[in-house]
């Protein structure tokens, strides 16, 4: 490739568009930094003794959940997405939870003889 491909964006409309996106770039960098910090935090917290391993897991999952919500909200634009996509994701979320929760229940309610 020699020269950058020549493009002529639609004048007025695109100006505004590009401007909008440019505004976000800084945000993306900040989120990247937060995520890195979060990673460091996870590692650090895993060496803190919270009493038992269940609590440790819960804490680590909490940090992970926060990180994930940043990725989702900012990188994947879920902070401002169309309604349709929210609906799809809400259903998915419900069913994943059902999978986890009900399997868990079934697992821990076996027939036992007293």
């Amino acid at each position: 490739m020699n020269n950058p491909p020549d493009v002529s964006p639609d004048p007025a409309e695109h100006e505004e568009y590009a401007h909008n996106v440019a505004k976000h770039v800084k945000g993306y960098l900040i989120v990247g930094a937060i995520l890195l910090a979060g990673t460091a935090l996870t590692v650090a917290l895993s060496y803190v003794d919270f009493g038992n391993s269940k609590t440790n897991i819960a804490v680590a999952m909490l940090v992970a959940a926060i990180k994930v919500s940043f990725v989702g909200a900012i990188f994947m634009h879920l902070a401002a997405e169309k309604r349709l996509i929210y609906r799809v994701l809400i259903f998915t979320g419900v069913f994943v939870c059902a999978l986890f929760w009900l399997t868990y229940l079934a697992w821990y309610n076996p027939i036992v003889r007293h």
Partner: protein
Amino acid sequence: MDSSTSLETHHDTHHRAAAHEEHKLGWWRTYIFSTDHKMIGIQYGLCGLIFLFFGFSLMMLMRWQLAFPGQALPVIGNALGHLFGPGSMPDGKMTPEFYNSLGAMHGTIMIFLGIVPVAFAAFGNFVVPLQIGAPDMTFPKINAASFWAFGVGGVIMLTSFFVPGGAAKGGWTSYAPLSVVADTGPTFHPFWNGQTLWLFGFVFLITSSLLGAINFITTIIQLRAKGLTWMRLPFFVWTQFVTAFLLVLAFPPLEAAIIMQIMDRVAATSFFMPTGMIVNGAPLHISGGGSPLLWQHLFWFLGHPEVYVLILPAMGITAEILANNSRKPLWGYKSLVFSVLVLGFLSFIVWAHHMWLTGMGSTVSAFFQTTTLLISIPSVIILSAFFISLWGGSIRFNVPMLFATAFLPMFGIGGLTGIPLAFNSADLYLHDTYYVIAHFHYIVAPGTIFALFAGIYYWFPKATGRMMNEFWGKVHFWPSLICMNVIFLPMFLQGMLGMHRRWYDGGQGWNVAGETVWGQTGFQWNTWISSAAWIMGLAQIPFIINFFWSIRHGKKAKENPWDATTLEWTAPSPPPHGNFLSAPVAYRGPYEYSLPGRDVDFTMQSEPIQPTEHVRRTEPEPEPVHA
């Protein structure tokens, strides 16, 4: 509708020209590697029907063994023994391994290579874009990829019959640990064995379904014609929409389970194997620590929604044909739509009703019993609405209608017998007996298969431009109806006697099968059932001949041979690439039959509302367009 929903894009002129070029596609691109939804639908349909017939043939073989256990199969027995290799049918006598292979593959093929491809992929591909007035699926290439993934999966499944040891033997449910220890050992190849191939085949089938389903949903959301609001969608489109969601969300957990089972078989992990197993008299050299029930949970998390995948499209087809041939609107359209949505939602949280006897305590089983009974309510509503729709109609009994009407009571019997299964204390008695076999076959065989036949007869003219023969259609219908019932009704009796499924000897060695009911012993009923199954095989011949003959020689069909109302009937028969000559617009609901004050008894969706028209109160409000 405001003008912004217009289909026009600024590229339009350019693309028109491109579309023209595409007409000159070569034979391969048109018929084999096509990306046109109609051709893909037809490909799916043909392959699916062939698999359906193949799955049925496996069962006809098994029915010999069940009726005459241990006797050599006459005429073709020896040849089959050679075809399927040693260990299958030496001297024409079926071995238990081969019986188990046939059973597992019958279930797998019927469901995943027969019904799903025909009911969902074929009809969905062919009909849905036409019914919503779209030029094609949103992602034509992915659509083709979906078909080819299906093809690869099918070929792998078929190949597995011919590897040493034969095809998978663990039932279509492939319960671990049986499925993990099956087909292993010195006489089996570590990779080329039935069970491992079954797993790999499945990965492709799942991929195929996922790609297809994503495409369907996107198409229905994005490509509906102008004016075709959600509440104006034909019911068939709704059922496909919900079905696609079931596939997208329920298949992946099974895929996860399949991957784990592959690991268990190929990499010697023990996801599904507990510690301390003794197989063949020797402790297994595995790390253990896994759980057999994990497989069942993940399997049925798909397995139950899957059965609604088998029935919803059938309900959709039936709805179209009932409305068309009773010449009146479907009764309770809104409640139908609502019921389908509820059905889809609930189907995700009932799966453990297949696992009542796995040691489930009282809390969890109470939960799953409740949800299972709840899910029967929308089914009741749908079926009732169909029945009520007939009242006041002017019913034409053409072949599609015959099959569609037969669907109703057949599904009814199958559904009703699901009710005792839903109570774990009653299922305690019925679990894994022929009662269960009868329950679900009534739904999928005389139920779904009849709906598929109805759909084939109904949309055949759209796909080919020719009608299928009515007379031979009736010759197909009546014997099929009778045989189906002679096959499956006695199975309820066998189940009540206590005869269990997957019995290679048909119950011959069991006392419970020696008891008499309705004048025959449980075992003797097998002869009736098997004979009916073979006669039904014969009854399919008129259909097969009719089908292929009519493609070339059937009576020429007009655009709208059934005087139907939905958008697919405004396109030419067969529709060209791009489907419609001009973008269709919908002005009204899908089933405006016998609208008062008209001189014809059908009013197409694309017909604008006349100023003089007395607008029906029940006509659903058009949905507001939200940005």
